[in-house]
């Protein structure tokens, strides 16, 4: 029996000659939080887009609840996405809708529930993120942390078995950050869903994650529990955790010419 909610096997992806991901494999199980950490541009968000089927791998497969996404047509992909929730970096709330209508959006689009039931469900979801009191607000009236929590309520509206979080802590003050982190942990446990979290915020990510994958130069450079990652002597892990400029991940972007050669080219 397959108990993994999500599995990536030997995934490769690139734009033309530029390779973004190579031979990436990971597993996410129900009720657990998997963190994908790595420097900016290491391909973390690309993995979320691959999981959502927004882009397709050039090699390897993405298997969600036993179903390979590569073989699905548009309708099949839409059916799969209904079982996924996604929290975007800045919420991606629909600015022409109120907070209530944002959370009600997936329910109205994908169910035939009557408005009374939708109202109750929306209020319950907003209550779960502590924002029942702002149901009537416009999205422009929300702070960054509140917008993130409303987006979280929207992401869990259909009780999906998988929730993806794209940089959920970016730009938040310490209190909002701790609130969002605890919400992610609590919702994963309460709903029993699988969570995959992309972040480069080490402290808060390691505090709530069950398993961590470190992405470097498009590959999984290391993986393990937060404790084992902290204790790791792997140079990739050490450079990332200690924030060293010197290490396997170069400070300078790769270039074919030396600085001296470039400067001599100056007219």
């Amino acid at each position, binding site marked *: 029996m397959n108990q993994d909610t999500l599995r990536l096997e030997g995934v490769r992806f690139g734009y033309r000659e530029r390779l973004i991901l190579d031979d990436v494999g990971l597993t996410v199980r129900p009720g657990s939080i998997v963190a994908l950490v790595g420097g900016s541009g290491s391909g973390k968000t690309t993995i979320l887009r691959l999981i*959502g089927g*927004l882009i397709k791998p050039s090699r390897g497969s993405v298997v969600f609840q036993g179903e390979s996404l590569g073989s699905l047509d548009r309708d099949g*992909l*839409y*059916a*799969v*996405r*209904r079982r*996924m929730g*996604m929290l*975007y*970096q*800045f919420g*991606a*709330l*629909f*600015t*022409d809708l109120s907070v209530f209508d944002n959370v009600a*959006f*997936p329910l109205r*689009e*994908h169910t035939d529930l009557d408005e009374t039931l939708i109202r109750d469900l929306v209020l319950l979801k907003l209550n779960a993120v502590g924002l029942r009191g702002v149901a009537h607000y416009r999205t422009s009236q929300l702070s960054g942390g509140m917008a993130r929590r409303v987006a979280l309520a929207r992401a869990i509206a259909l009780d999906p078995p998988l929730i993806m979080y794209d940089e959920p802590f970016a730009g938040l003050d310490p209190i909002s950050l701790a609130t969002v982190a605890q919400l992610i942990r609590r919702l994963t446990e309460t709903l029993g869903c699988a969570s995959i979290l992309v972040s480069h915020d080490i402290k808060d990510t390691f505090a709530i994650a069950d398993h961590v994958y470190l992405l470097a130069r498009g590959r999984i450079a290391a993986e393990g529990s937060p404790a084992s990652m902290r204790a790791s002597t792997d140079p990739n892990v050490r450079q990332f955790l200690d924030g060293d400029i010197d290490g396997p991940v170069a400070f300078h972007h790769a270039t074919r010419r030396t600085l001296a050669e470039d400067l001599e080219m100056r007219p």
Partner: protein
Amino acid sequence: MINGPARALRGVAQAVARVGYGTRFFLRLCGLALAGLRRPRLVIDQIHFIGNHSLSIILVSGLLIGFVLGLQGYYTLRRYGSEEALGLLVTLSLVRELGPVVTALLFAGRAGTSLTAEVGLMKAGEQIDAMEMMAVDPVARVLAPRFAAALICMPLLAALFSALGVLGGYVVGVEMIGVDAGAFWSQMQGGVDWLLDVGNGVLKSVVFGFTVAFVALYVGYHAEATPEGVSRATTSTVVVASLAVLGLDFILTALMFSSN
């Protein structure tokens, strides 16, 4: 040596592919707009946003153009002693040409740019992506209701523009200059053909509605998801839609009125 022709061929192939993609997108949008009428609330909201908010500029412009037509028409017709034909001149100018064309140009500037900017900003704010991830087709949910609303609004706005223009011509010609009111209305009534003049004018405004709405939504949906990209897209909408309207107007006028 081989590079030049190969590059030109590739350019032609890309252009054909773009036209093909645009045509498919247009047909898909038309189909979805029709299907979208099953959710009238979405279309009504957009009619309010696109139509009602364009009313003031359309009505004021129509009235002012009517004033100018009344004045210029009177000076020209007076030379030939045909001032009583002022009503006919003003009305034909408006229902055949100025009503549909100027309304479409104003519509492109007022509603078209706002549609492009709105859709472009939704894209920049990852709202379009979020919708895709929620298994909701953004073309059906965001673009189609706006397209349907624009198609409904455009002929109505053109009709209001022409009506206010005729009123403007009447105010200047009859009330201010003193052209005979009976002659003004009767010449208009006798000289305007419902099918040929009014019908063709309405047809033009429908075609322009398709053009402006499609350009605005297509450009917004394919805008680069950056502030600069949205700004460029908004400008493109005005330029492309205006030129398309003027070009189409020439073709339609040639087809509709060449036999007269």
